[in-house]
């Protein structure tokens, strides 16, 4: 009872039984639950999925770029900058993302009518849509969580390496680009995959500000067909597959990690 659990063989007998049971459950679901709506909505599902994926990719990219200065300021920056970066992260991490989304979308929306020039501006066609607000809020949120990790990663780069680089005549920028950034990046890489999966789990919130991502498509299915559970189960399956793919991709990147 005390020993560390022995690894379970991939095809242990109980696993085959479990697999058979789950196959039976899936079979039951396919036969006895309603799936006729799937064909009608397949186009919309693909569009929704595509929106979710690009929203995730762009918010991770922008968030990560923003996390670099935020993390660096907290790790190596001058005190006032460090405090500012730290308070920014605390505020974002200390409040629910849903509230932030509504603040940005409906809060700003309530300010627009008071400034008539906004409606005349060239940005207005974009500001009318939901995705800029969604992308902005999700990026900020990802930046705040990732900055915490980058702070640790920057702080963990050995001082000796930086001093050596300075000694051979590298400029500050070269130091950052050639030593600090790659070292910190690979230190942060193992947690990045997990953070991206967490970010993926946050994306359906954008449906509450009228963006039609994959979650919103399935909300429509539920509204149109009055079927509650089947669309939700199918949606859960899509997210599980997405999470599995993301995990695989990051494992692959991590294994190619040249530093360690």
């Amino acid at each position: 009872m005390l020993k560390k659990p022995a690894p379970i063989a991939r095809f242990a007998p109980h696993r085959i039984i479990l697999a058979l049971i789950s196959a039976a459950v899936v079979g039951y679901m396919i036969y006895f639950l309603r799936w006729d709506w799937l064909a009608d909505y397949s186009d919309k599902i693909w569009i929704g999925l595509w929106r979710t994926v690009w929203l995730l990719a762009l918010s991770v990219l922008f968030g990560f770029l923003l996390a670099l200065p935020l993390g660096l300021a907290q790790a190596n920056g001058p005190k006032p900058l460090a405090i500012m970066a730290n308070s920014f992260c605390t505020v974002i991490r200390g409040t629910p993302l849903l509230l932030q989304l509504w603040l940005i979308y409906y809060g700003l929306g309530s300010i627009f009518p008071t400034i008539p020039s906004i409606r005349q501006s060239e940005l207005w066609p974009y500001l009318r849509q939901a995705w800029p607000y969604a992308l902005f809020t999700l990026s900020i949120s990802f930046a705040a969580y990732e900055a915490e990790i980058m702070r640790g990663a920057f702080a963990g780069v050995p001082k000796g390496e930086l001093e050596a680089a300075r000694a051979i005549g590298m400029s500050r920028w070269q130091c950052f680009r050639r030593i600090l950034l790659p070292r910190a990046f690979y230190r942060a890489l193992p947690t990045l995959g997990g953070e991206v999966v967490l970010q993926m789990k946050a994306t359906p919130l954008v449906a509450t500000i009228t963006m039609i991502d994959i979650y919103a498509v399935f909300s429509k299915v539920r509204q149109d067909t009055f079927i509650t559970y089947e669309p939700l189960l199918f949606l859960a399956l899509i997210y599980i597959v997405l999470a599995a793919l993301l995990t695989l991709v990051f494992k692959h990147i991590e294994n190619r990690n040249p530093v360690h």
Partner: protein
Amino acid sequence: MQLIADISTSLSLLAFSPPGWGGALLKGLLSSLQIALGGYGLGLLIGIAGACGKLYGNAVCRDLLGCYTTAVRAVPELVLILLLYYAGSDLVNQVLHWLSYPPIDINGLVAGIFVIGIVQGAYSTEVIRGAMSAIPVGHIEAAFACGMRPWQVLKRIILPEMLVHALPGLSNLWLIATKDTALLAVVGFTELTLITKQAAGGTKHHMLFYCAAGLLYLSVTLISNWGIKKLDNHLRHTKAST
């Protein structure tokens, strides 16, 4: 002058007694905290049971727990909340019906706690499992050698020793629990975020109410951080002195 008048009417909307919404916001905060506490507690129980199962259980138990933690950690909380919120009470009542008990009334609060608890359980299983496997096997063996029962070993050795390792992960989960309660607004449960939305919609002072609610959530986080720090110091201190 106009500005000052604007600010004072805005602030009067936050007054504690109606027609100010301050009291309603605090009530919402209270129900958010209730759900967070309940859900976190339930999550801890599931986590301890799950971690024991993953470490000491048989192969079937470990595989089933693996499915639970993997699935919950891959599916967005919002989807899980919808699934559990609508299906959860239905399921409980069907089981009761099957056992020929009368149906029970599961109110929003209990459903909310249940939902947050199931989600939290998956994460705390992993946190606690990690912390438990950091306990030297010798300690547990020694406890059994002294003639302790398994339940005593869990209570006296495993849980206290585990807590030191698990504290960072568990305190992070608490912060997540307080924020996840906001998602219940989407199913129409009256907690802080939904009341904020109703107040904002009713009074048309969106910025004011969203910022006020943000401050409330933030203060919960800051107070929690302070408490966690105290607890951490305390645990480290007691550990060092033993």
